[in-house]
Every structure is written in C-alpha cells, then in structure tokens.
C-alpha cells in the first residue's frame, strides 16, 4: 500500500529513525534500528531506480499541494541512481561502523553517532529527491550539520579544527546557494525546479540570473570540494572517525556533484550555462588542475587517509570534467564515475579504517607488512586501489573509458591524454601503499602486539564493495544503462519539453483557480 509513497520514504524513514535512536539510548539497539532503516531505504531506492528506468519520472506532491505551490519530490533516473548508491553505502557503513567506532568513539557517544548518521542520510536523500530549490538548501543544511557532528566525534583534537573549518566553509557555501536561489526566485517567482527551468528558459541572457547561477555554482563547488575550494576536505576526511570518512567520501561530495548537475542541466539548461555564460571552459580548466594538483599532493602524503582525501578531490575533477564536456557522453561518464567512485572510495576508506583499528595509525608506516597480517583487508584495498587507477576489469576502468571516449568524441585529444596521465599519478600513490603492505617488513616497535585481521563485521561490507568494484567492472549493464538513461534524460531537449508542458499545465491550473 505504500508504493505511491516510495519517493518520500528514503527521507522520512531515517528522519523518524533518528529521534527513535536517541530515545532508545542503548547503542546496540540504535545500531540495529539504524542499519535496518538504512537497508530498507536502500531497497526502496533500488526499486525506485527500476521504476524510473521503466517509466521515466516519479513525482510526489508533499502535503497534497500540487507542484509550484507545494514542495515536490521528483525522481528520475539520475537521482534514483545516486540515491541507491547513497543508501547502499550508508547501510554498508553502518554494518561496518559497529566495530569500527567501538575503538574510535567513546561508548557514551555511540547512540549520538547513529542518530547523526541517520540525520546525515536524511539530508542526503532529501537533497537527491527534492524538486524544490529551497528545500534542497534545507536538506543540505541537515546533512551538513550532521556531518560536522560526525567529523568532530573523533577523539583526535585535530578533528575539532577540521570540523570547524568544514563548518565555516560549508556555511559559506550554503549561504552562497541561498543567495543564488534568492536571485532565481526574484526573477521567476517560483522555487520549483521544473517551473524554474521553464521560466528561466524564457530569458536569453540576464545578469541577475547569471549571478545567481554563479553563486550557486561557487556554493556547490565548495560543498563538492572543487579545486581550489577543496581545502576543508582533506583535514575533515583525515581526522574524522573511519566510518565517517568512508561514508562521506563516497556519498557527500557525490551528492554535491549531483546538485551541480541538477542546477546546470535541469534548471538552467546546458545551453544557457555553457553557451551563454561559457561556464564549460572554467569548469574544464578547474577540473584538469584539480586532477593534477591533487593527485600530485596525494603522492607525497604520509597519512593514508589524507592521501585518499586528496585522491577524492582529484577524482571529483574527473566528474566535473565529464560535466564540462557538454555532451551526453560526457555527462554520462561523470554520472558513471559518481557511481563507481563511491564503490572504490568506500572500500578504500573502510580498509584504512580497519588498519587504523588494528594498528592505531593511518600512517603509511603502519601499513608495512600488513599483506601478511591482514591479508583480507589488504586484498580489498588492493582491488579498490586498482579500481582507482583504472585497471581493466574494475569499475574504475569503465568510467575512465567512457570519460576518455567522451573527450575524444569532442576532439579534445589533449584532455583525453591528460586524463590518462592523471591516472598514472594514481598508480604512484596507490602503489606506495601496496608496496609498503606487501614488500616491506613491519616496523619493529609495532611487533609488540600481534596485528590481527579485522573483525568479520568490518570485512564483509568492505568486501561487498570490493567485489562490486569488480562486478561493475565486468558487467556494466546496470551502471552504464542507468547512467546513460540519466544523462539522456538530463540532456535531452524533449525532456525539457516535458518539463515545460508540465509547468504550463500547472500554471493553467493556477489561472483556472
């Protein structure tokens, strides 16, 4: 009986579960509840993805108020895909977190951890699902506030400064988005995305709208850590508890990329953004610089979490690169990379978290000799690492393949070449860790305590992601089909036409009243 409510459930379920978690008090129960709710959300998200692949769009009017007046949840393939990723990763991270946070967070805070995690999930799902520009801001802030809390839960004092820096940058970003939304509202009188799209389409070139878009893009760029606005990300990911790093690295920035895609393609329309404003060149250059700069920085890090964080920033460069190519193929490559990168970074951070748990350090020195002592963890790390590099038969190869193909189709030979060179840098930083793990003897002082393999509850989610990396590297039918459909949907003028007619009928409705 709930099928028609599915679009709203991935938001509402964790939202209800969060206070319940707090009321339950016992961390075991809270964990169980959070995991179950997250799992149900994942199932719903997947079923939504199937439905949207089949039918196109699902719209859900909250409060029964039809769209431009009420808030609308709107699911198409693009956000259903990312929603599945987010809820899926969240479930895995929760399973993983039970043992992981036991060593990293004081026992009394465990319940708060699960509550904050659920709130973060609520926010992310909300951002993904909503069809209303202001509602997006609200959910952005829910997820951000929960994230600041999650980051600061770590016992390391540097987590506090990292969280503070994140908070300041995140709030600036959110306020920029708010300014942008305000400017859009000023010119159009609406907040609904479809409606905005239709009304912005009437403007050829408008300085207020341009500025609004610029502010939104800058705000979102802070949230997604686009170079050079990424400086908050490495400390936050480095010092956050491992489970949080794993969750954020594979979801939060991806969701921000989605927001950027949504604003560019759905609301303003690629033509307005790229041809009238020439944003593609800026994004392209920033993306390339991000790939190189941050990959280079990653190669010299001694803390593996920092290294992975910089790698994340570089990988975000790939996604933005895909967007900035202004073709369906490029957009599709970007979306595909969102999907695949979530799989790889999730597994990598989980593996590092397991190492941190057993050795008490995420320094590269701590990885020495782990190939023997923690074989399963390191094997998962290796698979995901190869995927980051883009070795064939892994998911990373698939997204890189499509990205380069998209660049080549536009005759951007240089860019395609740079993308490949960029992945060489990934070989360097991943290679350093693998070498330490497999070919170096453990540091003597660490040999006092014998390092054991990570507990099963941590290995299982890690391996699910690792296997997913291989699975989606070989059988690409699901990911590629979905990404392709999403890109077509976002790009196709006919889809825009559907938007327009929908909003026209809405305004007629309004007129009739």
């Amino acid at each position: 009986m709930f099928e028609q409510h599915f679009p709203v459930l991935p938001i509402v379920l964790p939202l209800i579960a969060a206070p319940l978690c707090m009321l339950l008090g016992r961390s075991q129960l809270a964990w169980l509840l959070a995991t179950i709710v997250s799992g149900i959300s994942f199932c719903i998200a997947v079923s939504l993805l199937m439905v949207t692949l089949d039918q196109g769009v699902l719209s859900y009017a909250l409060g029964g108020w039809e769209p431009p007046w009420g808030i609308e949840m709107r699911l198409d393939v693009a956000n259903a895909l990312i929603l599945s990723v987010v809820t899926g990763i969240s479930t895995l991270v929760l399973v993983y977190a039970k043992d992981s946070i036991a060593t990293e967070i004081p026992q009394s805070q465990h319940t708060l951890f699960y509550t904050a995690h659920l709130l973060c999930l609520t926010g992310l799902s909300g951002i993904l699902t909503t069809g209303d520009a202001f509602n997006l801001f609200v959910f952005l802030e829910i997820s951000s506030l929960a994230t600041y809390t999650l980051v600061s839960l770590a016992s390391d004092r540097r987590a506090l400064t990292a969280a503070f820096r994140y908070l300041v940058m995140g709030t600036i970003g959110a306020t920029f988005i708010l300014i942008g939304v305000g400017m859009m509202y000023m010119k159009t009188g609406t907040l609904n995305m479809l409606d905005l799209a239709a009304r912005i389409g009437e403007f050829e070139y408008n300085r207020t709208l341009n500025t609004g878009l610029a502010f939104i893009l800058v705000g979102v760029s802070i949230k997604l850590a686009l170079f050079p606005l990424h400086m908050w990300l490495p400390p936050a990911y480095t010092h956050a508890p491992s489970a949080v790093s794993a969750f954020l690295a594979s979801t939060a920035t991806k969701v921000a990329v989605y927001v950027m895609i949504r604003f560019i393609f759905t609301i303003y329309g690629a033509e307005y953004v790229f041809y009238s404003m020439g944003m593609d060149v800026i994004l392209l250059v920033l993306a390339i610089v991000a790939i190189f700069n941050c990959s280079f920085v990653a190669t010299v890090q001694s803390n593996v979490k920092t290294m992975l964080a910089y790698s994340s920033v570089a990988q975000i460069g790939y996604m933005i690169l895909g967007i900035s190519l202004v073709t369906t193929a490029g957009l599709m490559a970007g979306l595909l990379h969102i999907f695949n990168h979530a799989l790889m970074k999730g597994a990598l951070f989980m593996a590092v978290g397991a190492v941190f748990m057993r050795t008490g350090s995420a320094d590269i020195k701590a990885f020495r000799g782990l190939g023997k002592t923690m074989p399963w963890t390191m094997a998962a790390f290796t698979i995901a690492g190869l995927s980051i590099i883009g070795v064939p038969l892994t998911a990373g190869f698939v997204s890189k393949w499509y990205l380069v193909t998209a660049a080549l189709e536009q005759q951007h030979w240089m860019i395609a070449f740079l993308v490949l060179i960029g992945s060489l840098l990934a070989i360097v930083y991943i290679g350093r860790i693998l070498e330490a793990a497999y070919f170096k003897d453990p540091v003597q002082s660490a040999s006092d305590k014998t390092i054991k393999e990570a507990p099963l509850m941590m290995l299982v989610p890690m391996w699910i992601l690792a296997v997913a990396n291989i699975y989606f590297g070989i059988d690409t039918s699901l990911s590629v089909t979905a990404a392709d459909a999403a890109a077509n949907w976002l790009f196709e003028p006919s889809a825009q036409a559907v938007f327009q007619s929908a909003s026209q009928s809405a305004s007629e409705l309004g007129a009739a009243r």
Partner: protein
Amino acid sequence: MVELIDLVLLGMLAITALRVIFLKDLFAVVMLFGLYSFLSALIFVNLDAVDVAFTEAAVGAGISTVLMLGTLALTGRKEKANNHTALLPLLVVIITGAALIYGTLDMPPFGHPDNPAHQHVAPRYIEESPKEIGLPNMVTSVLASYRAFDTLGETAVVFAAAIGVLSLLGMPKPGGVAIDSGLKSHLVLRVVAKLVIPMTILFALYVQFHGDYGPGGGFQAGVIAAAAVILYALVFGLPLATHVVRPNFLKVLAALGVLIYAGTGVTSFFLGGNFLDYNVLASDPVVGQHIGIIVIEFGIGITVFAAMLGIFYGFAAQAERTNIQ
C-alpha cells in the same frame, strides 16, 4: 516613509557592521552583533515581515547572543592582533561584491508590485490560503502546510544541532551542588525573575497557539520558553535549573517533537493522503488543515524548546566545569 526608515536602519546596520570589522574587543563585537540582529529585525518589521522579525529578535538577538557570550566567557574576550595581511580576503570580497552588484542590475525594482516574485506562486497563497487552510496568518499557512516539508527539515536541523552540541559539550548532571554565582546575592533580580518567568512562559504559550492568527508559532514559542528557563538558570544557578528541567527529559522532548511532526505526516499515509497532507485528518479539509497545523506547530515548539535549552545547558555545563577548575 517606509523607504526613509529603511534607509536609516540600513545605514545604522552598515555602521555596526563596519565597527565589528575593526573592533578587537570580542565582547563589544558580540554586543554589536546583538544590535545588528535587532536592527535587522526592525527592518523586517518595516518590510512587513513580522514573523521573521519576531524570530530574528528571539534568535539572533536572543539565543545567538547568549550563546556567543557564553562562549566568550570560556574563551576570553580579546581578539589577538593578527599580523597576516588581509589583502586576499579583501580581494575575494571585492570580487564577490562586484558580482552581486552586477547581479542587481537586472533585478526587478525594489518593492514593485509587478515583480515576478509577486506574480507566479505567491498570489495563490495570498488569495487561496484563507479559504484552503482557514488561517489568517498566511505565513503560518505556507510554513506549516504548503511548505510543511521545509519546516520538517528545519525541525530536523534544530534536532541535528542539539545532537551536535550534545556530542561536543555534553550535558550537566542534574541536581549538582549550586556554586555561588555573583547573581545569588541579587535579591532584586531574583524577585523580578520570579515575576517575569511565569509571564514569559505564559507568553510562550500564547505565541505557540496564537501563531495561526498573528505573528508567531512553534518556533518562536519554543525559543521564548527556553529563554524563560535560561533566565531561571542564570539567576538561580544551573544545578537548580537542571533539577527543574532535567537534561534527559530534554533529550526525550527533542526527539519527541520531531516524531510528532513526522508522525503527523505518516498518519496521513494511513488515512490515504500524501505525506503531510492534512486534508485527510478530518472529514472537512479545512478542519483537517487546522488540526494538522496545531499538531505540527506543537511538535516544532517542543523540539525547539528542548534543543535550545539543551544547547544552553551544554554551554553552561562547560562554564561550570571551567569555574570548578
């Protein structure tokens, strides 16, 4: 006239903001910020946004300032002179500002009734909401019904903030020994406080349940009620206050408020409507709307009350700890 007042207030705001930039005394900075909030509340009144003004006064000038002062008590009131050049920030700000000014050039003129913002979605709220919702305060109608999901999110944000502060600062243990604060000897203060606190709580209830008709609503009511307890804690000491309103009770309340709100939405599932569709709550849609709005406003109220008070407790507990040390 409206423009003139607006201009004067804006000018005062500009002066305040500039002073904040250059002052090194953080206490003064925080006070000026309180002033800034008040002035902006006045501007909001002047621009017909009474609900917003109410909230801004309660939150910006009230809670925020109290929290900032509490922080200052723990961190010291002097900003150290920093020697790094502020050239880059200045450049960033100038570029951003220039972009904004550029953006204003195509803006619709200020206050013009034909502006697009007043044409498309808003007229429906103004014209239909009294009929559809049955409430005179359109802001409440839009807030609690048309855009109820935003407000649910907002409640979740407050809840998230409470979680954050709780995890960062912890809660005081209820009913500890009251240490001698400077205020204890203030007989006048205590007497007046005893007079004022009940009035404040009464006012909070009025704002809570009268919000449908005039400015106000759950959010403002929650803040005011919290302020009453905060006043109590300030005058009579934190241990006594935690004895009256126990921290654990606050946790339950904060969670409960969100649950009430979300539960209302879920109830409409079972009654056959969409999430947060109040029409189905009663046989008559307008009555249903009314019930729904009262219930969710109540949810907002208790969450905000509990969260704000909890946040204050967190800061106060820290101060207590520092004092003991």
